[in-house]
């Protein structure tokens, strides 16, 4: 694509988040110019990494208020103004919570369509975004028909992030005063759910639980298995909604996308909402009482049986193996 692709660079704890680097990597492969736009008091410090992954220019909004306000509102305003000045062809935004805030407001401000839930993007004359619907049973290609910038929300882990050997990018300060209305939504504090062991998105083994565990306290069995295999524990939306475990553990359409070497689904029926987030795992093991549960259609190894009986046996086996 002989044009310009922008990547919205989300900065958390002073660093670009993983999906930002994934999108920069993909943007490089589209050809044309790749630029990044970042909003954070420390955006300039993150510029070197953005350059390494392909941005030749980094537009940086460094107003201290970006850390004190709900970011989506002021960031979208500034991005809209910048897009009107520079007319990029495509704006790629990672489908994080903040990314969705920015994309929605931006699309309304510049009157551009947004294609969400993207898993891939192609640019050969037209810009086409690939997404999956109905629980990833169908793959859809959607083409932008509009003139002006095209906004695409791309799910995390759709691409591998690889540095492109680019040098230091050109740094351009964004000068956009923050509209008074955005000062009405203040960020008071940020709380992290404490979890030990590897991160859900990075673990080689993920063991997830659903309603079939019957009681929140049975998640302890999953944690024991996770500890023994150096894995991470995930959950279905049903049990997160029921308040058994925190949202940070949710795997699925509205939660995290994981692609571990082995995914173990315990007492999870395999609702589409869930499978979207784990279908890309290299191997899937499922334990469920119900032989007709849809999760078995995805499983490389399926055990039809009582999860609450099998998990303690699994813990014993793993302990015995460790000696």
């Amino acid at each position, binding site marked *: 694509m002989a044009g310009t692709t922008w990547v919205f660079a989300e900065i958390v704890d002073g660093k670009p988040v993983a999906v930002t680097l994934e999108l920069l990597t993909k943007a490089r492969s589209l050809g044309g110019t790749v630029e990044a736009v970042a909003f954070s008091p420390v955006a300039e410090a993150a510029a070197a990494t953005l350059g390494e992954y392909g941005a030749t220019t980094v537009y940086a909004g460094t107003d201290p208020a970006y850390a004190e306000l709900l970011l989506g509102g002021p960031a979208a305003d500034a991005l809209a103004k910048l897009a009107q000045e520079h007319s990029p062809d495509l704006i790629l935004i990672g489908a994080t919570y903040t990314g969705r805030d920015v994309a929605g407001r931006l699309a*309304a401000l510049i009157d551009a369509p947004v294609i969400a839930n993207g898993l891939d993007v192609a640019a050969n004359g037209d810009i086409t975004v690939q997404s999956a619907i109905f629980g990833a049973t169908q*793959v859809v290609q959607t083409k932008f028909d509009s003139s002006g910038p095209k906004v695409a929300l791309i799910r995390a882990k759709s691409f591998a992030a690889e540095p492109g050997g680019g040098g230091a990018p050109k740094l351009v300060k964004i000068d956009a005063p923050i509209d008074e209305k955005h000062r009405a939504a203040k960020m008071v504090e940020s709380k992290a759910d404490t979890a030990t062991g590897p991160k859900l998105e990075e673990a080689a083994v993920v063991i997830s639980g659903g309603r079939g565990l019957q009681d929140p306290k049975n998640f302890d069995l999953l944690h024991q298995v996770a500890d023994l295999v150096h894995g991470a524990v995930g959950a279905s939306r049903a049990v997160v909604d029921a308040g058994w475990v925190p*949202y940070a553990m949710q795997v699925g359409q509205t939660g995290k996308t994981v692609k571990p070497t082995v995914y173990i689904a315990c007492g999870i029926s395999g609702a589409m909402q869930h499978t979207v987030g784990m279908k890309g795992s290299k191997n899937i093991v499922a334990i469920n009482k119900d032989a007709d549960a849809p999760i078995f259609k995805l499983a490389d190894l399926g055990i039809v049986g009582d999860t609450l009986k099998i998990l303690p046996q699994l813990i014993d086996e793993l302990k015995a193996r460790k000696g």
Partner: protein
Amino acid sequence: MNVVVCIKQVPDPNSVGQLDPSTHTLRREGVEVVLDPGDEYGIEAGLQLVETHGGEVTVVSMAPEKGLDAIRKALAMGAAKGVLITDPALAGADALTTAKVLAAAIKRQPFDLVITATESTDGYTGTVPQMLGALLGVPSVTFAKHLDGDGQKLTVQRQTESGYDVIAATLPAVLSVTAGVNEPRYPSLKGIMAAKSKPVDKLALGDLGLETPKPGQTITSVQPAEERKAGEIVEDDGEGAKRIVGFLEAQKVI
């Protein structure tokens, strides 16, 4: 306080969705439609706010004529009145068109708070709340998993990738709530009876001063996803745990 809750009627989430092969829009014939289960949390949040701080809840929905059923359910839960925007030109409307239509309908009366779900259960675009915020010129406080508020302000726990942020906002604002923010009530028999006589405004695009939207995107192909290879499914005969350990060993993760 005036609370507006945006709701959507969707194909029963327990049924398997289908696209019309010629128009690539969601097939609605012969499919049971229901109030989006995700919307019940927004309705409940609105009702709790007005019950404590006074005012009323108006539900707004863009849908075919049948969408009236979803509005009636919200009225039966306790909302005071409904607005249904229905127009053949809106079939297959994208997220931005939907947001423009809802914003135009919301603007017809003063509002303190607009509540939505985080995304619909059928389309999953998940950008309408933010678009509404921009179109209405107010902050969009999104992904609330916990909510305190009154007629002037809100304190929200907003879901993040690693936990949650605490956001303090003054009204007016748009608020999107996740499932789990509250426990939606069931409509009472009395509520169901009362809902039948509550007012519902029916509007077409022209009533909102809007023109037929131009779609900004076209679906060019729909294909079945690559199926995973069929695996080995076995009854647990007491050896299930051992088989899993064997599998983990074969994959060299232990």
